[in-house]
């Protein structure tokens, strides 16, 4: 298996092509933003098919957090072809990552601006060769002291809410997503927030200005010295109320 950015996946674009692609992508982004109320996918590059920029719309390098445990996270993240699926997100892990220290491997989407009072549905496909997962949407708001602007980055916003995570297994509860190697490619979804929110939850939910999709490989099984993978594709987030 070859991992992005090897040449067979990456197709260097000519200047004209690159420029065109850039324009198209941006147009698409704005169109997507504008049509958010219409229930379309709010995630940029949710299918990981953007080959012009590696993991465009996603954060995978956490060196800026200063957390040494996460400093090498980006070396375990790739976009690859898995079976019949082209361009899927691959999170690579071993026992140290999953259990011994247990920081896992993760990616986060860029912050998605949302209007207050929304209910959303996150749909995602995943496959694992060992790791379990935690896939959920987190609510963020502007960090104190940051002047609001149109293209916030994760380091400019602050977490204030964690919505219920996506459960792939039969039990729709717990701290892990419940994906296992035997399940193959599995599609699951989660609707949030809860319709009956407590006062405490409501206080925090009212602060949410952005949504970030958090995908992490944790726990599960491993086959040292081989790597095990969590594959993710077709990430779709839509607003289900008007």
């Amino acid at each position, binding site marked *: 298996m070859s991992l992005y950015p090897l040449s067979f996946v990456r197709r260097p674009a000519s200047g004209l092509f690159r420029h065109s692609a850039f324009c198209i992508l941006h147009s698409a982004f704005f169109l997507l933003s504008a049509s958010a109320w219409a229930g379309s996918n709010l995630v940029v590059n949710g299918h990981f098919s953007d080959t012009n920029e590696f993991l465009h719309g996603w954060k995978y390098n956490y060196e800026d957090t200063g957390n040494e445990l996460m400093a090498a996270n980006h070396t375990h993240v790739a976009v690859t072809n898995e079976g019949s699926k082209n361009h899927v997100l691959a999170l690579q892990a071993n026992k140290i990552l999953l259990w011994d220290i247990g*920081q896992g491997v993760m990616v986060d989407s860029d912050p998605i601006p949302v209007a207050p009072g929304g209910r959303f549905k996150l749909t995602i496909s995943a496959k694992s060769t060992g790791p379990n997962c935690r896939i959920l949407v987190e609510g963020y708001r502007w960090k104190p002291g940051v002047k609001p602007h149109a293209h916030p980055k994760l380091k400019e916003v602050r977490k204030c*809410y*964690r919505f219920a995570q996506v459960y792939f297994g039969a039990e729709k509860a717990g701290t892990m997503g419940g994906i296992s190697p035997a399940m193959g490619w599995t599609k699951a979804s989660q609707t949030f927030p809860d319709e009956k929110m407590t006062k405490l939850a409501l206080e925090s939910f009212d602060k949410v200005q952005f949504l970030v999709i958090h995908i992490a490989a944790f726990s599960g099984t491993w086959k040292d010295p081989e790597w095990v993978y969590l594959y993710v594709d077709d990430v779709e987030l839509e607003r289900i109320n008007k």
Partner: protein
Amino acid sequence: MSPFGLQHELIRIGRILNRWQAEIRTVLLIAAALASLWLLTLSDLVFRYQRTGRLAAWLLLMAGVAVGLWYVITALRTRRTPEGVAARIEHTFPKLDNHLINTLQFSQRTNADPMEQQYVERNAPDWSVIKVPALRDRKTQWRSYAVLFLAGLTLIATGAWIGGAWNNALVRMLNPFSPRTPTTLAIIHSVTPGNSTILKGAALALACKVSGKKGQIVYLDLWPEDDKRSVMKLGRMTGDGEETYAYQIPRIATGYQYRFRAGDAVSERFTVQALPPLAFSRIEVAVTPPTPRLRQGSAGQARLGGQRFDGLTATPSIPQDSILAFDLKCNREITSATVMTTNPVSLLSPDRGQSWSGQVVLASTRPLVITARDAHGATAETTLKIEIIPDAAPMLRIIAPTGRTRLAAGAAPRIQWEVSDDFGLTQVRLETIAVQDKSTGQDSIPGTQVQEWPLDGTRAFATNWNGEGFPFSMTEPLAFRIVAVDDRAGGRNGAGGEPNRTISAPIIFEWNTPKDVASQNKAVATKLAEAVKGLVERQRENLEKTTKLEAVQQTAKPAEWQDTAQAQQVIRKIAGQLIADPKKPLGPLTEPVRKLYLGTMAEVVDVLTRVSGAESAQKTVLAKRAILLETRILRVLTGTEAGLDTVKRNQEITGLLGQLDALVKGQDTALVQTKASVTNAVKLNAALVDKQDRLAGALTEFVQACRKDATTLTASDMAFSKILIQIADGCESNKLAALMLKAAECLQNKQPATAIPPQSKTLAALTEFQKLLNGWRIQEATQTASDMREALQEASKKMDKLIELESKSVEAMRETLRQEDKSKKPLDDLEEEYVELHEQMKDSLLEIATDLQIFPELPVGNDLVEDVFQVYEEVKQKLGTDKAAIQEIGLQKEDWLLALNDALKDTKKRIDDTETWLPADADNRKALTENFDQAEMPKVPIIPMPGEMEDIIGDLAEQEEELEKKSDDSATNQGAADILMGWDIKEGEWVSYSGKGKSGNTRPDHKEQDGRSNVGRSGMADGETSAGSGKINAGDENIDKRMTQDSSQSGQVQEDGHSKAKATGGGKGSGYGDELGMAGSGPRRDSKITQGSELGLQAMLKRNAQALYARSELSHVRTGSLDEAIRWMQQAEGAIAKGYPAQQVREFQRNAVTALKKSQTELGGAVMDSADATAPTAPPIDDQLAGVRDEAPSAYRELVSEYFKSLSSAP
């Protein structure tokens, strides 16, 4: 021809040859010049040179001509040798062979051989064959002239063919300085504005007038200084005479060069210079305050804002009438500058417009406007941002008396006042005026001066005038007024004007006869008794009515509730009048009633008003509350009514004692003055005679009062009654009144020495009586104090018993709950097991004692994380986990924790964490840990806290209550300075000092636990908090009183919110929140800070004043307005403690000082009754205060406070 002649001839021929050569070169030069001129003329026709081009071409032409001329001159100056000329001749005339040159050379030899001499001596060559013109190069000459002809012909022919344009161009080329324009199809007649200057930001119109053939296009070429050239197409010429084309630049931001092009015509390139707007670059202002103020020295100068300031930025406060000296400069040269006050004042420039200076007198409070103008007509204008301090009139405050005053017969008037002025006072006068004189202000009728205090510019003056040396009648009312004059002299800086003058309102004193006083006192006492009795009756009646309404609240009409509210309002109003009476009829009972008035009475009105509109459930609560409050009011009022007699008696006794004290003091003063007048007759004046006379009258009044009070006090205080009779008898038997009158007569007859014996005898007798009464005072005060002490001790013992009982009950209840009832016996059997339970309790106490031993001394970080932010996590709890059985596990002590702490001791670096989340099940693990001995535990290193921390919280996981209790872990002292945190957020088996704790979604265990954490949930932790602020969330609901050592550390924590938590665990030495914390019963801990605080000082002052007041009351010593002073001190103390604005605290303190001064005046001299109660100007309950602190942002609190103050002080 001789050789010499030959040589000369050859030189001549050589010159001829040079001329011929110069001629040829001249002809060629002219031809070349003509050709060049032709070329340049032709090029001008094509290129239409500008002045520069023409000049360059002309210079080129001139340079060529110069070179040619030089070439001609060199031809003329060429030196040809005779040999050369000879050779040239021989070449032209071959017949000469080389005979000519040989002859020439041989003749030049000095030692020629005979052969050569012979050759020379032969005849010269045949010179006749030599025709000089034949030496000319005719061919070259002809060719050069041909070239010249061709050049001239070309020039002329071209001119003839082209016509006038050629001649025009030719002239333009020949004279580059000619204004002649090139010949074009279009003509640009004029361009406006040409070379000009314009202000930046202004509009610029560029225009040209052109004429020419139709169809030609007019362009404008623009070269901005900060951009590349741009070309504007202005239009196409119509050919109808002279046309104008213009282009408007709406806003000039930079300089331009421009030119117009019309067809083939091109204008000159013009320049427009853009000037920045005229602005002041420097305004320096030197302030000279008004002359009188200079006397105040540096402090005065500092108050006036300094000597010099920057007029562009500074905003100083400047007193009126100051001289302002200006020194200003603009960003370029200006032609005039003025300062506008009431009239424009022109400034002068010593350096031709660079800087300008001048001075004005700040005579009015109108703003100063400075205007500057430059040569281009641009103006700059600015208003000096100064605050002009107007010279206000003096502030005059009468401290005492505060209203129309009635004095007892013989009492001297006393006036205490303060005067202040913003700049300085020159004079304060006390005048007497007619009682009916109502004139005020500047129109007041001049009074008779009593005394004058000349002042030399001092800003504050205060005095206490006691009528010393002023004769007055005791029958007619006397009116005074105070006049204060400031130092605003007419000549101050030439500003002119009159000094400010403030005149007080009339201060009127009246004298009552003893009979009048007695009747008034009686009337007042009766009125008071009736008022209080009526108040009690009203309250009792309203309470009954409220109680009835409460019983039938569902059917009661709203109007009935409103009636009760109105009745309470009336009660409150009457109570307000009682406490507002300056005579203080309630005496020491005033304060309880005042508290009632401000608190309970106000609340009950509010409660009763809300009852009628409340919902039924709320109505019940409100009604019961109203009854409770009304009962409280009734209880206090009943107590007040019962205590009135005691108050009255005490007042009478105090008054009597005060009279005697005043008599002793007055007689003593009179004796001293009399003795002084023996040696100095000037001191024997009418005032002294009056005083002695008044004392005799006062003594008579005192004796009457003694007899009267002895009769009335017989029943209540027999001992005091006997003393009074003894004193009255003594006065009469010693004929003290007669002695006093005798002394007065002697003084009137100018015999002071004769007056001394009766005065001395009287004083001795009065002093004896005073001692007698003082003895009684001390005895009574001692007895009263002893009674009070016993009562307090008794109450204290009762409180101790209650506390002990409460503590035991709590301990027993907690232990009962902690002990599991495994026997399942019914509760009835509990009594039988009491003994066993008691033993268990003993064990329990021992256990607690053991627990207290395990905790090491808490390491103190004193570190606060100011930015703690909360993340809420939605958790899907796993089914059935709320009922999962509790698993008990035992854990040994971990030595690696000690090693970890040891390692962290040096690094001080925080350990990074992995991702953390909330568990989806309840805590079903009970950890029982082995603990270290305290000796094993090294000092835990403190790792510095980060700048921000993330707190994660979720709704509490569901778990059965019993299981929740069973899952409580044991207390532990296995502690780590820092540790890797991540995964599920659960309560672990180790203590952590890293402050990484999260609020989580489970309740903290019910146990003592130290460590360091953020705010989190309420629990029994005894550690230190590291969060600067945060919300305390619901946690352990069964908080017991703390059993471990106190762990409050320095630092201040602000509470963001509160979820009915009972305790926060650990904490900082100070903090604040919206709700009160749980009461504790720990030992008293005094502050370790030795330096006194403002709050402490204020509290100490209040305590001292209270003690003085209590002692005075006990000893029947008059207190004047001391109670009022204590009240203000109390308010000041409260304001400091609550962090109110300093201004408000200052106001309370100022009021306290005023009350103290008032007390001083009231107690300082003769007996003076309180002011007339009929016209209290402002009852104490409605004092004009700065507004209380509200929810306004801190930056605006002072402002809001001032606002409310101004409202409350409005008439």
